[in-house]
């Protein structure tokens, strides 16, 4: 019987397995972590809006606090409140944004927003959710704005649970308030 001789240059079984393994490693699909941004979703007169969490200092339940009216202040100032010994101004977004109020006294929360040295509280009806959304879901949103003020302030928009959400630009809001 003729003895089997190793063929010169022949690939061994071990080498072949290693090549297959390396090939698999190279072609393996690695899921890319999509960039996400954290948002606070809130509602005003049934319409959903959002702030980037990076602009939010805290969310307060103001249902049991008295907002002190400041006579003579601009019409969009709801008043001031005491937050752990610090006086905080509160904005009435309906007046600032020119929105029609559905019911009186529905605003139970205040979102404390900030941009550089500017800080204020925005009174809102409900905090809907605090969530991460993919960066890619954000679309230019000012065509959704229903008036000139919102057109100036709406930064992005996205759809969430079949609802349109307008993202408000806190820097522009600060400019508008301090104008």
């Amino acid at each position, binding site marked *: 019987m003729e003895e089997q001789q190793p063929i010169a240059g022949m690939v061994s079984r071990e080498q072949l397995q290693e090549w297959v393994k390396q090939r698999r490693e190279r072609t393996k699909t690695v899921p890319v972590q999509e960039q996400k941004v954290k948002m606070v979703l809130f509602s005003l007169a049934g319409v959903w809006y959002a702030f980037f969490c990076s602009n939010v200092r805290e969310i307060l339940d103001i249902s049991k606090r008295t907002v002190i009216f400041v006579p003579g202040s601009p019409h969009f100032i709801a008043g*001031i409140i005491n937050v752990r010994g610090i006086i905080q101004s509160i904005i009435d977004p309906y007046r600032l944004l020119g929105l029609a109020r559905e019911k009186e006294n529905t605003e139970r929360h205040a979102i404390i927003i900030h941009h550089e040295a500017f800080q204020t509280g925005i009174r809102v009806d409900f905090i809907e959710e605090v969530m991460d959304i993919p960066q890619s879901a954000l679309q230019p949103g000012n065509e959704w704005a229903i008036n000139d003020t919102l057109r100036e302030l709406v930064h992005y928009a996205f759809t969430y649970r079949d609802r349109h959400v307008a993202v408000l630009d806190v820097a522009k809001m600060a400019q508008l308030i301090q104008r």
Partner: protein
Amino acid sequence: MNSSRWNILLFHLADVPFGVVVAQIMAITYPVEADAGVEVIQLPERLAFQDRKVTYLAPRIVWVKERDVGVMIDNPERIVSIDPAEIQFLADYTRSRRFPQAYFGVMLTPEGEPVLLLDLQGISVTETETETLDLLV
């Protein structure tokens, strides 16, 4: 009483808590006749109270030192002593456009209620004086 502390007279008008520095007051009197020949400032005429109804339960006039003018307040409640360092500033954007010197700050009562501190000198300036002061800022 520690002289470094300020005495503040507290009152409410249309449910808004106000305070005035006692050192700015020359006297407190009952209201005077309209034709008494003295100027008495009505706060709702200087500071817009928007849609709030302003009624006086026990009106009094605080007469401002170094000015021939009085300011009508309501039902003086009490005098509290505070350290001026405890006074906080109102954000600039909350200031009155017509009378930006109307308030010099906000204090908290021992119960934690914010009180708007009226500057009696600031509220009693004329609008012409206000414009001049604005130009100097």
